[in-house]
Structures are given as structure tokens and as C-alpha cells.
């Protein structure tokens, strides 16, 4: 029963958010450019253009147009891109694999660095290693992500010539999905962008892991676990870390939007052919349907990930119920 309520409430929220975003998209389409002119070009006569406007329904009253726009959007039709002459949503989706693999690689790096690093800093807070890590994390927070990328290119591509600086390298098509993870060239191209994207998130998560672990380690249940002779590793990981996990997941959920913005910056620096790169291209060309499709897609992603975060609380903390998560 609780599960059903949760699903229904989530769906309603998602519907509301997506309708709001699509309505903004409609307003944008109304105010930027003239679809009739974009579709048949500057050369057409006024009569031809008027006929096309009539056929597209651009002369109808706007509430009617809005309803039609929302109806089509619900069916996944957000209009055709002016530059690609293809359905805008399809163009966005074709770039999704590149962005997804970049974000996936960066997330794995963030997990692999910030959790052990944060635990270490919490276990030996006074040592010089922990101090070095903390100072480095402050410095990491002060360097904008696009500068990290530029400095990495200057060092590893220009100065040392070790790593490629732009593009995705060789990719393999698995049906509709293209992947760079299966070729050595693709993996080589992934190194600099993924470490750059991770560099901005690692300090944030590392500091949170550290402070949560410090708090957990001073709790009575950790003392009890130690007193009954459990191996230290087990105390740290399954007693202390598990209780530090809820704020980590919350932070992860909060950072999704920011991560998408950082992805746009990283894709621009490394000319990574993903959705963010495509979006900036669409802005430069005033390709309104593509801009709107990006907005709608990112909005849907945001809603989806926030739902997944709420579900993750269930797995981590048995006290949480679907009806009312304890936060």
C-alpha cells in the first residue's frame, strides 16, 4: 500500500514538473524565431509562408497551440531540429551515450577516491597525510572545473604529449548505443575528461565522508563493536560507514544538477561529443526545438534521479519507509 502511494505521488510530481518545463519550452518557442521561416528558408514568398503558418497551426489562439504542444510533447515529439532536420529528442538521445559514459567514469573515480580518502582522514586526523589531503581539497574547490581541464590539457597533452586532448576516440556501436569503453583508444580519450569532472566532486564528497565518519566513530555503538573484539575493518565499514551513507546519498542527489552543469563545461573543454556540447551548439545556431528538447530531457533526468535517491534510502536504512522517509 505504502509503495503504491509512493509511486502515485512521485508520478504526479513528475507530471507537474514536466508540464511546467514543457510550458516554459512552449513560451520559448513562441518568443524565439519563426518556425515557418526556419522550415522553408528566407527565399519563400509571403504567401507560401502564410500557407505554411496556416498548416502548422501557428495562427491559432495560443491556448490551443499550448495544448497541442503539450500533447505532442507527451508523445515524445518536441519538433524537428532546424540544423539536423531530424526529431530533436532523437538528436539529444543519440548524444546521451557519450555524456553517460563520461559521468559514469567520473562517478566511479569520485567513489574510489573520496570514500577511502575520507575514511583515512577520519581515522588519522592529525597526520601529515590527512592534512595534505585536506589542504589539497580546499585548493581543488578553488579551481573552476574548466580550468582544471585546461591545465590538464596543457600538461598532459601539450607539454608531455601523453594523452589525447579532444574527442571521444574510436567507438563501437552496440545497436543504438555507441560506446568508447571497449576500445583502448576510447578509454585513453576518456582519461582526462573523467578525471577533470571528478576533480570538482571529490573534495566535496571526501570532506563529507570525513566529517560523517568522525561523528560515527565517536558513537557508543562503535565503541561497543570495538569492545566486543570485531576486526577494525569491519567496525569502520559495516558499522561506521553505513551510518555515514545517508548524508552521502542526499548530497549526491543535491549535486545532480550541478554535475550536469560541470559536464557541459568538461564537454566544452575536451570537445566531448555529448549532450552539453550539442546544447551549446544549438544555442549558437538558435536551434529552438533542440534547446527545448534538451531542457525537457534534463528535467526528466532530474526527476528520475531524485526518485532513485529516495529509493536508495530504503536500501541503506531499514528504518525508512516509502510513506515518509526519515531524513
Amino acid at each position: 500500500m505504502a509503495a503504491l502511494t509512493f509511486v502515485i505521488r512521485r508520478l504526479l510530481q513528475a507530471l507537474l514538473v514536466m508540464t511546467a518545463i514543457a510550458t516554459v519550452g512552449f513560451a520559448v518557442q513562441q518568443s524565439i524565431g519563426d518556425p515557418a521561416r526556419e522550415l522553408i528558408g528566407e527565399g519563400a514568398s509571403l504567401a507560401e509562408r502564410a500557407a505554411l503558418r496556416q498548416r502548422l497551426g501557428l495562427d491559432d489562439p495560443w491556448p490551443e497551440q499550448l495544448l497541442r504542444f503539450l500533447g505532442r510533447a507527451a508523445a515524445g515529439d518536441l519538433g524537428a531540429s532546424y540544423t539536423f532536420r531530424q526529431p530533436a529528442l532523437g538528436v539529444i538521445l543519440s548524444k546521451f551515450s557519450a555524456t553517460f559514459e563520461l559521468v559514469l567514469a567520473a562517478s566511479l573515480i569520485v567513489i574510489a577516491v573520496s570514500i577511502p580518502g575520507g575514511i583515512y582522514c577520519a581515522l588519522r586526523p592529525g597526520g601529515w597525510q590527512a592534512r595534505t589531503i585536506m589542504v589539497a581539497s580546499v585548493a581543488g574547490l578553488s579551481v573552476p572545473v574548466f580550468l582544471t581541464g585546461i591545465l590538464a590539457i596543457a600538461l598532459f597533452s601539450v607539454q608531455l604529449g601523453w594523452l589525447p586532448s579532444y574527442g571521444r576516440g574510436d567507438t563501437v556501436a552496440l545497436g543504438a548505443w555507441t560506446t568508447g569503453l571497449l576500445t583502448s583508444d576510447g578509454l585513453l580519450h576518456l582519461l582526462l575528461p573523467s578525471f577533470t569532472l571528478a576533480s570538482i566532486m571529490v573534495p566535496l564528497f571526501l570532506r563529507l565522508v570525513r566529517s560523517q565518519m568522525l561523528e560515527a566513530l565517536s558513537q557508543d555503538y562503535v565503541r561497543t563493536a570495538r569492545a566486543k573484539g570485531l576486526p577494525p575493518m569491519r567496525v569502520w565499514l559495516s558499522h561506521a560507514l553505513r551510518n555515514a551513507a545517508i548524508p552521502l546519498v542526499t548530497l549526491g542527489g543535491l549535486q545532480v544538477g550541478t554535475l550536469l552543469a560541470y559536464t557541459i563545461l568538461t564537454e566544452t573543454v575536451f570537445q566531448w561529443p555529448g549532450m552539453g556540447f550539442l546544447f551549446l551548439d544549438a544555442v549558437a545556431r538558435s536551434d529552438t526545438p533542440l534547446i527545448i528538447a534538451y531542457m525537457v530531457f534534463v528535467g526528466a533526468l532530474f526527476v528520475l534521479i531524485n526518485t532513485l535517491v529516495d529509493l536508495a534510502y530504503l536500501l541503506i536504512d531499514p528504518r525508512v519507509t516509502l510513506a515518509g522517509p526519515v531524513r
Partner: protein
Amino acid sequence: MTPSVDSSAGRGWLARLARGRAARGVLAVLGLLLLASALAPLYAPQDPYDLESLDLLDAELPPAWMEQGQSRFPLGTDAQGRDMFSAMLYGAGISLVIGICAVALQLLIGVSAGLVAGYRGGRVDAAIMRVADIQLSLSTLMVAIIVLGLMRSAFGSDRFGALAIPMLVLVIGIAEWPHFARAVRGSVLAEKQKDHVLAARALGLAPMRIVLRHILPNVASPILVLATVQVANAVIAEASLSFLGLGMPATMPSLGALIRAGFELLLSGSWWITLLPSLLLVAIILCVNVLGDAMRDALDPHSVLLSHYPR
């Protein structure tokens, strides 16, 4: 009735701040930089906005200490033959002005909203803080990228360039006000129970006067610290947006726009066009962040002590 300032939280922290070595150092650096860029028109070798004075024959000259460098261009030139030293002076000024103005706007909206929410309470409070929560759940940079992207394709790049400064200030200013609203609201809730406020209310003073003269002065210190940190964030946001081509145009570059223009030439070996403005940008952000930390420590001396122990 004279305005009541609670002296235990103390004005003394500003004096304590001024005694700290790190704070004095970064304050001096930032002050010098602001002064240098404000007075740049008086002494800079070149007016970087005057495209007439540029000579393409001077393009991509390295800094003066390198082999092909010329003493006319101490830090080299960019692809249009623009003097990097002058461009960076002007650019740093633009970056700082946008950052400071954006935070001023955040302060204006956030402090007013926080004062009203905290003092009024009830439904007004709930409504304001609900809006603040929604605003905070959206990422500033993501919203800025989409809004400025839409503006750019609506206005075209020329008109967008002319309007870039006010638009950047508005977008960054509006996106981040909830931080101030939350901080102020919390302080007001604590403050309005205190005797001096109760006395002011008993005297029948107007709510506006109580809020502005009896509450605001006592919550000002933490706001100042937050504002400093926010300037660093606003400078980062402006640089990031300009780097994406959604901020200052190449004809009137901020540090981010300079880095964008130089980035294309990095691979061909002209590193100074990108790396010199990058270094200046990082230096500014670090200085502002160190200043913010020093202010926090001066405001709350206990936090210095505590920060060395596990919390």
C-alpha cells in the same frame, strides 16, 4: 530609543580580523588589484577595447622575458595583437565588478526575504522558505546556462554581448539569494526573542524600524562572512559562463572570456594567452576564499580551536 547592538557578538571581530596576518595579506592583495584595475585607464599600455589601436602584426607575441618577446608587451599579446597585461587588468576588473554586484543583489533579495520571513513567521515565512527551497534544489550554474543560452539565441550574439554584464549580475544574483535568506531568517528567529527587541515592541515602534534598526545590526556579521564566500562563487560562475560563450563577449573580455579566446591557441603552443589569465583568476578566488575563512575564524574564535579536533 537608540538602536540596540548586542556587544557580546561584538564589533571586536573586525579588529581581530585586521590583526591576522593571512587576512591582512589577502586584503592587501585584493585591494591593490581592485585599485590597479580601477585606475587601469590611467597607466595601462593599451586600451584593450579600442580595436583600432590593435595591430595584427603584433599577434601572439610571447611575454617579454621570452626570446621573441617585446618590452612593449610585458605579458605578450593575444591573437588580435592585444596587450595581455592591459587586457588582464581590465578583465579582472570586470570579473570582480560582476561578482560583487551579483552578491549585492543576492544580499538585497536574500536579506529582505529573510528578515520578513523570520520576523513575520507563520504563513509568510512558510511561503518564502518554500520558494527558497525550490530555488536551492535547482543548480545555479545549470539554470544560468539554460537561461543565458535562451537569451543568447533570442537576442543574437551582438545584442547579447552588449547586455552581458546586467544579465550575468541578474542571473547569478537571483539564483543564489536563498543562502542569505536562510542565514538571516535563522538569526532573526534567535534575535527576536531577546529583551531589546521585546522592549522595542513594547514601546510600539513600527515593525519596519524594529527590523532595520534593532535586529539587522545584530545579524550583520555572519552575513558579511557569507557574502565574502559568495563573491568567490560568483566570480567562478561568471568565469565559467563566459568560458562557455554565455557571458562577456570577446570585445570586452572578463578573465573567463580571455581564457576562452586563448584556449583555441593553447594546442598550438601560445600558452600565455590562456594560462596567465587562468593564474590570475585562481589567485583571486583563493584570496577571497582565504579572506572568508579568516573572517569566520575572527567572528568565532572557538572555531579555530575546534577545527584542529575531530568534530
